[in-house]
């Protein structure tokens, strides 16, 4: 797309959109023009982004996105504090919560180990797990069944072994290469039941 024909602020807006995941230059242009023609929606969007950036932070205990710290799950009553479920992304917490099957605590890594992309243990919210193990009886590693997910699960279980915990991994139901986020609730629930010891 030839940005030179647009006023500077418009081309900046299009470029900003095109940096979003899954948005190509054409879609970016369409979104920008839509917002210019619908200033009400544009104001709402700008306000929503500003408030989200201001109010949402990572929970200092589990790393999930939250408005209050610690988050509702970490400080909540009725959660099973002997179980810790390790997930890649905050959106995976949502996927698991929707099933209603899991009542334990979470730990969000914000990614998986990916040597080729330069993501090692230091780049993840990984080492804080070891400060949370008191009272935990079982750690469920619920990362996606990708190569990087498997590698992360094995790395984690090796480090957790000396603590004498039960370390399990989501089992059948989740096919290799699938994303937890896209699995339906029944599939996730089945995977939770069938988790296996690492």
């Amino acid at each position, binding site marked *: 797309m030839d940005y030179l024909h647009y006023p500077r602020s418009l081309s900046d807006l299009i470029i900003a959109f095109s940096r979003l*995941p*899954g948005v190509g230059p054409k879609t970016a242009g369409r979104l920008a023009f839509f917002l210019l023609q619908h200033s009400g929606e544009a104001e709402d969007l700008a306000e929503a982004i500003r408030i989200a950036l201001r109010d949402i932070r990572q929970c200092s205990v589990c790393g999930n996105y939250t408005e209050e710290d610690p988050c509702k799950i970490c400080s909540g009553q009725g959660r099973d504090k002997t179980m810790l479920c390790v997930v890649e992304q905050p959106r995976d917490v949502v996927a698991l919560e929707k099933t209603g099957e899991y009542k334990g605590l979470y730990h969000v890594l914000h990614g998986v180990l990916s040597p080729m992309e330069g993501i090692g243990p230091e780049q993840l919210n990984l080492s804080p797990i070891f400060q949370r193990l008191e009272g935990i009886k079982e750690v469920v590693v619920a990362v996606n069944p990708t*190569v990087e997910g498997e*590698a992360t699960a094995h790395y984690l279980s090796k480090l957790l072994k000396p603590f004498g915990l039960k370390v399990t991994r989501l089992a059948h139901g989740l096919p290799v*290469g*699938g994303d937890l986020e896209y699995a339906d609730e029944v599939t996730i629930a089945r995977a939770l039941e069938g988790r296996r010891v690492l």
Partner: protein
Amino acid sequence: MVKMAVYSTDAIVIRSREYGESDRLITLFSREKGKIEAIAKGARKPRSTQRGGTQLFTYADFLLYRGKNLDTVSQAQPKESFIHLWNDFDRTIAASGMVELLDTAAPKEQPEPELFTLTLSFLFLLRHVDPYIAQAAFALRLMHSAGYLPALDECGDCGKSLRGEQAFISAEAGGLVCATCKNNRAVKALNPGSVALMHQLYKADLGMLDRLRWNKKVREEILGGLCFFCEHRLEKRLHAWRQGSEFI
């Protein structure tokens, strides 16, 4: 509408990244066409038939549509998933280092059948060979066959034999040089033991690699020297190689 060309090839997935809502952007090293970039649409959805075949390190039969910049995966039928590369982090790192180097060194769409066979063999070898021995041996053979690393047993400048000698690896010198020739070039030193082992890592039959042993010092010298050499020679930071050095 233009009819799109379809072609089939067996290939190794040497890079696989999440893209968009549910796609994967993959780099293949194929027997027929060498390095190919392709998009696998919907490959991250649980019911996608391309799920398994588009995972990193997987060896699969591919059916692809030719595109202007990017080909599109139509089918990906896994032949070998190399499970042993997933469940041991040292193996994951070593295999990552190997395919990262291959991705950086191999030109796009240029068939390299010997390099293809070499890569496939090494992914299998990682089942029982020390992963970092395999990584170093692969790097030496790859850099040599791509013409980046000419001589290993003699000084690249004066031709003096390096057997039993200290040597220096240098991208500026294009390989190994002796103490007299290193001059003011950026080099990494290799002790005689490391020079000798490097020679074996390069020359040994693949079936003999599991007999090679090294201590921590030699390992660090060789892997460090190779990382330094490859990064300068290919002008690219090698993430997996640097990750590895944090663990070993």
